[in-house]
């Protein structure tokens, strides 16, 4: 009776009632690891502490990843990959020599469309960047620009799905889920894998992009909204005051503890108690993580929070840094949620606006991480699900191009000021140093110290791996 009647205290202050209990609470992170280790039972560890930190396969260069996803497919031809030939051939059909491709809108025969940009070389490395990205041009010496990216996804759904999960077909865990599975969580009171997006548009495929697929749901990403509360169901129901909520939780913990004590062999009952405690801590931690009030005016300016065009992306980039600082392992930032980058027509207006929204905040993120000493341990990845065609669409737009497009990486041990690969003279196909999505994923995992072929999850008895057994880390990107 007495143990059930201690309603007044908060659950995370509960005194340990047994050695087992003490062990479950001991240590950092999800304390049940100690308990599991004590009992020499890996299966138990998996049920009761799936998020316990795990060692990587090899030395990690990065401990966190921020993936800036330009949803809809930004044009490489107008940002990072200038093609003078395109200007000479403008209006003509694609010469036979470049081969024929399938594009979703069937623009294989449409006249070529030249860019309208002013280009310059930037930084010590002299990388080409167009005038749409002036701030990004200022950080090129920190970037590895990947000009030879390739995907299998012809449409948005397959493309976004593959860039997230490795496959154009649904059902597989996303890269963030694999990372969380492989490395566990560094944060005691925040999820390990967080998703941010701009606007209210639904990201193509929806939450499937950050789902755990065939893995347990504990590894899936958690969407952090910009509203209050930032996480769904984070705050007590409307009208339930803090004292009442705490009392309910305390009583629940008492009931659950009594239940767990009756069948100590059911370790998941202990895990259930801890899940409520973590939820309780998240109620306090998550609002703090998203509270930008403590950021200086200079930082806010740096990210463009004071400009309407850049405020939304700036906020998400700044949030990404704050989350990484708090031990969040994988942050996925969607920009243009709902395929806003999908410039089938009017690419000038579309891209000018979107580039303006992202350019300053993204560059600010890299600069800010760097000056705080976080860039060494944080891998920043920028890109979309594919690039765009040199062939025009509707006169002034471009179709999808998964055959060769540009992404970039910065930090996390990736050497800066380098360029990898190339596309052909019209920017349709990659022609050197092919970087398939599987290679990109293997590279990201490698930065985190994970070997894409050794990271296995048994689904239906079969060993599944994040890149479907394909791809390899690019040697130059992983410092070999």
């Amino acid at each position, binding site marked *: 009776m007495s143990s059930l009647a201690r309603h007044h205290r908060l659950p995370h202050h509960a005194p340990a009632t047994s050695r087992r209990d003490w062990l479950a609470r001991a240590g950092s992170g999800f304390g049940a690891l100690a308990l599991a280790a004590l009992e020499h039972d890996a299966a138990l560890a998996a049920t009761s502490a799936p998020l316990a930190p795990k060692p990587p396969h090899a030395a990690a260069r990065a401990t966190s990843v921020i993936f800036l996803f330009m949803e809809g497919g930004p044009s490489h031809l107008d940002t990072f990959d200038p093609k003078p030939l395109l200007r000479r051939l403008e209006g003509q059909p694609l010469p036979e020599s470049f081969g024929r491709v399938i594009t979703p*809108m069937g623009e294989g025969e449409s006249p070529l469309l030249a860019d309208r940009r002013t280009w310059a070389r930037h930084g010590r490395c002299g990388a080409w960047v167009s005038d749409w990205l002036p701030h990004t041009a200022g950080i090129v010496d920190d970037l590895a620009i990947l000009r030879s990216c390739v995907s299998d996804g012809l449409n948005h759904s397959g493309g976004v799905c593959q860039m997230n999960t490795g496959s154009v077909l649904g059902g597989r865990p996303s890269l963030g889920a694999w990372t969380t599975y492989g490395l566990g969580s560094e944060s005691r009171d925040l999820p390990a894998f967080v998703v941010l997006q701009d606007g209210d548009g639904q990201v193509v495929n929806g939450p499937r992009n950050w789902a755990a697929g065939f893995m347990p749901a504990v590894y899936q990403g958690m969407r952090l909204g910009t509203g209050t509360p930032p996480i769904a169901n984070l705050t007590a129901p409307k009208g339930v005051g803090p004292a009442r909520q705490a009392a309910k939780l305390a009583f629940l913990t008492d009931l659950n503890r009594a239940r767990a004590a009756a069948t100590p062999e059911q370790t998941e009952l202990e895990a259930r108690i801890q899940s409520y405690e973590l939820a309780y801590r998240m109620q306090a931690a998550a609002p703090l993580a998203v509270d930008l009030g403590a950021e200086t005016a200079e930082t806010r300016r740096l990210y463009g929070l004071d400009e309407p065009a850049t405020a939304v992306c700036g906020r998400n980039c700044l949030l990404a840094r704050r989350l990484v600082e708090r031990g969040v392992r994988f942050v996925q930032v969607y920009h243009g949620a709902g395929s806003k980058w999908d410039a089938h027509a009017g690419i000038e207006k579309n891209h000018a606006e979107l580039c303006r929204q992202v350019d300053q905040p993204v560059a600010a993120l890299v600069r800010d991480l760097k000056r705080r000493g976080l860039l060494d341990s944080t891998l920043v990845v920028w890109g979309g699900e594919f690039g765009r065609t040199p062939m025009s669409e509707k006169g002034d737009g471009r179709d999808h191009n998964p055959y060769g497009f540009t992404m970039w990486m910065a930090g996390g041990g990736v050497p800066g000021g380098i360029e990898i690969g190339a596309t052909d003279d019209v920017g349709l196909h990659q022609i050197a140093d092919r970087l398939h999505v599987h290679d990109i994923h293997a590279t990201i995992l490698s930065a985190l110290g994970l070997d894409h072929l050794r990271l296995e999850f048994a689904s239906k008895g079969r060993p599944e791996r994040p890149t479907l057994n394909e791809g390899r880390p690019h040697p130059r990107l992983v410092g070999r």
Partner: protein
Amino acid sequence: MGGLVMHSTRAVALSRSAPFRATLPVVASIAAASLWLLAITAHAGAPLDHFETTIRPLLATHCQSCHGDEAAKGGLRLDSLVEVLCGGDSGPAVVPGDPAASLLIAAVRHESVAMPPDRDRLSDGEIAALEAWVADGLPWTGSASAADLLAAGLPPRAAAAPVGPRLRPRPMVVTEEDRGWWAYRPLVRPAVPEGAVGHPIDRFVDARLAAEGLVAVPEADRATLIRRLFFTTVGVPPSAEEVRAFVADTDPAAWERLVDRLLADPRHAEHLARHWLDLARYADSDGFRQDAFRPHAWRYRDWVVAAFQADLPFDRFVIAQLAGDELSDDARGAIATGFLRQTPYEYNQIDVPKQWTDILDDATETTADVFLAMGLGCARCHDHKYDPILKADHERLRAFFTAIEWRDDGVPEPQALFPGQQTWVDTVGRIQRELATLRASARDELAWGGLQRFPPQIKRLVMLPAAERTALEEQWVRLAARQLTFQPEKLPEADRLAYERLTAELAAFEKEHAADRPPSTPAAVVAEVGVPEGIAPGLPEVLGGGCPPIEPVAARGPSSGRRLALARWIAAPTNPLAPRVLANRLWQWHFGEGLASEANDFGLLGAPPSHPQLLDWLAADLVEGGYTVRRIERLILTSTAFRRATHAPESPPFTLAAARDPQARLLWRRHARRLDAEQVRDAALVASGELDATPAGPPVPAAKPRRAIYVSVLRNTRDPLLDAFDFPDASASCSRRNTTTTPSQALLLLNGEWLLARARALALRIDRQGLGDDRSRAAEALRTVIGREPSAETIDACTEFLGLERSRLDADASTFSVALSEPMPQREGLAATIDPARPDALLTVPGSASGAKPEAGPFPADDFTFEASVVLRSFPADGRLRTIASQGFGRDDAPGWSLDVDAAGRLGLKVRGARKDGDTKIPIRAEIDAGLRLALERPYAIAVAVRVVDAGDRRVDFQIRDLSDNDAAARLATVAHGFDGSHATSQPFAIGGRSGSEDSSWDGLIDEVRLSRRALQRAELLQEQGSAGDAVVAAWTFEETPGFAVDTAGRGRDLVRGGLQVAPVKDLRGYEALVDLCHVLLNSSDFLYVD
């Protein structure tokens, strides 16, 4: 160089498990000096760190693809220390401590053999690191030291092999040994073990336990058993009454009687069907970007439920799903082929051959997973690496399916046609054939809207006359045609006219002869289009190869008979695999874990069964018993093994078992299980008394209180509750759910509205029972949520909690805001709280149809007055309304009235109905803007008097008074209108929204509601302290006395909330405390787990 850069932040963790050992003397005889020194420096303190951070990745990346578990070129493997020391054909790969003498080092330096070859040649740094490692004596995590190993003599190589299955040699040859694998062996019913007489399952299980020297725990208590049985058979918990009755029933046959009752319960079929739908990757939407709704997918779901309810023998169950369309004796069985239609579909994929390939692969692999527990996916691209499954096996199995096409048209009802119906079939068929001919003759690509996007190959095929397409090309064209719209205006003049004439003729005929349309059910099924050339069908080599006899059939049109042949082979009594697979699934569904734990993979990668003899016995019994599922379930459920307790007493026999078999694979005790997603949802609805047990039919939104199996499964828009509790993702067959414990679940259950609403409903249910004191209420809450009779200690604790919550409610400022009601600002007493986030916000009066005469409907259908006090907390989104009260008006053109506030705060009345004297089919309507606005968070008294009867005086009088300002005068508005009809409706009168519509909920407070059967004079209004006398229809004040929902006009027209009776809550504090207790109990492990 990079390979040497040490980032040792994580390295400490790696070395923790291995004891530090002194290293062998370093022999630094080799050059590459600076790098070499760096390597030594880097690993000097921790050789195992060096191994883990540098050497292991290096071996894995550069060496093990040829010298590892997938290949051992030159007889050499480099994936364990023993293998390295044994070396390959050329002898030991290394001499520990002596890099210069080690072949491995010479090889990587390209001094002897050049390894890895040039394109992958190691960097100088990597070579130096390897040399340092050899010099160091080959430290290897988790292994005895090289020196010790060599001193003791190397163990046999097999013992050193990495744990896990061996790779198969290439090229793949399927051997007799492979065919002798436990799953593929002929099925021979094993003898039941000798010994104690009794249940055959127990004799197998107990014999095994005895052989291991283990003792099983006793049976669980009866309250536990009935709850366990309910969840595993019908998927919902027993009522407290059912528990009581069973606990008290001392008849030895009581258990078997209960088992039989529950197996025959229709809810059992629903529960089993959900297991099957996991396997069938069932969903109500396409997936991919558009995730379009599949309007007819549910017919397959209902077919599965009906099949389990009828205990359809499993052989027929299999045949219907793979080839129901090819069976001449069961036309509706075609719906079962929906099994082959659950594949995700991308509506705008123009790479048609690729998508068609994916569709066929999915059908093939799902069939192999579900019926044969063969993981065929690997063999899509290459021979399986571990199992004896050839790439060719995949291709041949796939060939059984390659003739299919997807159909969405009607499945005819199985009956003879009347003459009129025959005419319908003949005429419509003829016209449609002629239309098809005209479409096929179109030679202009523009005649097919959407075709322009497609690659030239597809364009060409679409333009090709059908007769000139191959079967495969025809399939591509039909798949592409799903994205095309035919545009007859692009046909040549004569054809266009013919097309228009035929279309008109068809429309006219269908209209005129509508009564003759033969009954048919629209469904997503498969049929066949013709047999594509290519690989011939055949069975996997390991299952005997060859091909069962295939005969074309003509049940629903010509069909190859391939799928029927495959299905019949799977379902044949001589097939040993299918009954093993099914028996294992049935075991898994009742024990939580199969006898073989990977129910979709009986190959090398799945674990072998814990009780192979028992599995074979069950499988044999299944076949011999006519393949009826329920028989085997009954066997399983009546065994003692099923009834064992989850907890083992702390005494020696059980501690021994716990040590030897902690996972209880030998079934000496049972595992407690967390409820599945559907069980969480359904059990909460059962506890709250809200469950709508209606079976079958189209899927419903999750807000409806139907069983979870009837909630829409949208691949991209998952229900948050089901998602959090591991509902499968419906992309591929799922044989076993994950079971997770996450903070998201905790947040959802403790803070989310859905479960809180259930707690409120449950608290109301208990409150209505009029139990005297907190102790009785606590006990009733416990019984309802957990089923069993609670212990006195638990009741004490809950009672104490109720008492403390009551006192806390006064201290906590937020006290009553989640209640049904809360204080009205600037007024005495309470008002009804209407929160649009709550699905049960709407207050309605049951049976309150309106009619011109009281006997037609007691509520007014012409003149009336509505009065209320209100507080508005938020404006609606643009284009929407906040409704104060309404009657009817839920759908387009539905009659009724609605008093609303729009996004700008404007008050208005809408009336719709039929003209009384004219054509009653023509709806008339009036939208009457009062010209008055409401501000947020301010209390107003509102009165609306409507006159429609008197033709000379059709007007609405509005009167609004701001209750927060004592000096404010009432604002008046009179608006004339032309509505001269009746707004009679069978829909109920509703406060706070519109019945049947969730879009226009009020947000805020509503109080002092009065409805009167005529347009009142100003002096009669409540605002003027007037009386409406006999004109009052009903009135509500939402006070504790006489009760929140009670009609204070004494007409007995009490309100219900969210369809639920709102009996008078006399003691709101007590009610709120009870809500909290119910909410806690619904969050508790006692509720979420079943022993």
